[in-house]
């Protein structure tokens, strides 16, 4: 069944795997994923360079969230190859731990730990995984809270924070592990309109600092301003990818025009 599905759905990859230069921090080759009988990723090829900001967009159910979740192994890919910073993702627990510690992730629903304060949310990983001292972890956490603009919320619990503040604390939590790569899974979709910009500002600043970022988002203003590359997902394959000027200016695929016209109105 798998071979049939593969030939049926294979699309011409934009980057051939052979082009993977030493500069590529993420290399994905022919990544497939099934949920039961449902073929949700149907051969994704994508390389991301260090410092690059990639925006992934596409209709719901297109596999974009599933794809970035395979990169830190929240979802397991069933065929193909994913190499992050030279380490291939396999079932080896040590590899998974090593890769996860290099990747920060920000979720649509924040997923802060409700029984811990903002500060404790941020210091948990550094203290338990990185084995930092409590003082060092707290100092770093306070610096990060200042960076995301809510140092005065350190002692509060997530339920006492607004959605925008929660998401910024979640970004600080991910950054506290000093990741090389940040994944954003629709970080503003669950926010009230007036809180979206405060989160996007933090992401913009982060992109400016040279962080490698993959963002699943429909914030087209953000994509146009910050992305090096935009990737349109549909039905588990990459439909089109290119710089924002190409995607917004002269998209090659009819599907891209159609999707953009839907979300820009």
């Amino acid at each position, binding site marked *: 069944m798998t071979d049939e599905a593969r030939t049926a759905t294979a699309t011409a990859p934009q980057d051939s795997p052979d082009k993977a230069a030493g500069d590529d921090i993420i290399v994905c080759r022919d990544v497939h994923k099934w949920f039961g009988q449902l073929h949700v990723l149907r051969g994704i090829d994508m390389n991301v360079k260090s410092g690059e900001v990639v925006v992934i967009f596409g209709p719901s159910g297109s596999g974009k969230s599933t794809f970035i979740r395979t990169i*830190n*192994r*929240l979802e397991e890919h069933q065929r193909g190859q994913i190499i992050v910073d030279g380490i291939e993702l396999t079932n080896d627990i040590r590899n998974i*731990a090593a890769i*996860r*510690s290099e*990747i*920060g*992730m920000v*979720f649509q*629903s924040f*997923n*802060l*730990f*409700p*029984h811990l304060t903002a500060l404790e949310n941020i210091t*948990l*990983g550094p203290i*338990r*995984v990185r084995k930092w001292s409590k003082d060092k972890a707290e100092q770093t956490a306070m610096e990060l809270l200042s960076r995301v603009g809510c140092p005065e919320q350190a002692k509060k*619990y*997530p*339920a006492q924070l607004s959605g925008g503040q929660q998401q910024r604390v979640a970004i600080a*939590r*991910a950054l506290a*592990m000093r990741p090389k790569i940040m994944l954003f899974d629709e970080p503003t979709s669950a926010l009230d309109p007036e809180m979206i910009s405060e989160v996007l500002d933090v992401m913009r600043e982060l992109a400016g600092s040279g962080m490698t970022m993959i963002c699943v988002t429909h914030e087209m203003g953000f994509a146009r301003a910050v992305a090096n590359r935009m990737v349109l997902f549909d039905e588990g394959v990459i439909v089109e990818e290119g710089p924002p000027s190409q995607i917004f200016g002269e998209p090659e695929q009819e599907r891209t025009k159609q999707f953009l016209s839907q979300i820009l109105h």
Partner: protein
Amino acid sequence: MSVRTEHLPPPVSTIGRRAWLRQNLFSSWLSSLITIVLGGAIVLLVLLFLEWAVTDARWGVVTTNFRLFLIGQYTADAAWRVWLALMVVSVLTGVSAASTASRATRTLAIGLAAGQLLLSLIALFSDLGPLVGAALAFNGALVLAAYFGGLRFPFRGRIRTIAWVVAVPALFVLLQGIGRPLLPVVPTNLWGGLLLTFLLSVGGIVLSFPVGVLLALGRRSELPVVRLLSTIYIEVIRGVPLVTLLFIAAIMLPLVLPGGIRIEHVFRALAGITLFSAAYVAENVRGGLQAIPSGQIEAANAIGLNAYQRNRYIVLPQALRSVIPANVGLFISLLKDTTLVAIAGTGLLELLGIGRAVVAQPAWIGAQLEVYIFISAVFFFLCYVMSQASYRLEEQMGVGKR
């Protein structure tokens, strides 16, 4: 039309005491009738009970047998060891309650103090005599003294744990004795009454909780063998009455075990209660585990926590917090189920067992009511302290708030 901008205070309630009565008890002629009939019946019953309690009741059945009720057939000459052990527990509880700075442990300490003070009042007029009464009163006061002392000089958490871990086996050795001439042995099958009820219930709670948590984690484990074994254990134990388990532990176990191994009576009963209760704890905790959103586990994975850290810092704190009411309910029924020990033919007489033995004494035929009222009062006191402590614990951990 102008726009109101100032914030208005909420309307003040104008209900007075008389209005409250009218609204809640005498709102119509029917409800007035019900109020008068029920109120009259309650007053009548209370008066009748009080009349009986003051004039007819033979409370001597409790006071002349008070030693039996408190410590069972524990050798009378060695009874001082129990009071001494209680003294150590009193000090440790007081100090611990102060240093945990938790309202829940403070409630337990207050309960221990109040319980000993109440018992001391009865002991003064009982076969135990004023000296023991004074010792119990002293212990009760000691809990409070240790609490206030502990507030001034707080213990570190680790020292507190070590103190309890050292004290519990030491106290057990003290109670059991090491042989003549220093501390003659008091076999555990002689331990009884409130002492035994207390040991079995506190021991059962403290031991079954961690076992239950492990079983719950096991039942949700990704390892099929662990999951299967946990599930089988839980289902089998939950399908068997506690009495049969106690019977097996008391009578079958010694037959099955190889000759040299003898397990003390108390431990057999404790094992039965613990193994039984653990299965129920496991199912409660499993409920809490299932209520944790998958996003929490994903977030824990994403920051690189391993399986142990994920459970220890993210999953269990949230799961256990949400099942406090269910678990305390379970522990309250565990406390009351210790009465089954006497029924299961273990040869052990806990509080209720002693009560049944006392009622059978020729001198006290017909005094059942007095005995069972006393026993009920003791159980009510213990359960009430536990449920109060659990409310404090819920508040403190913010169930449903955070």
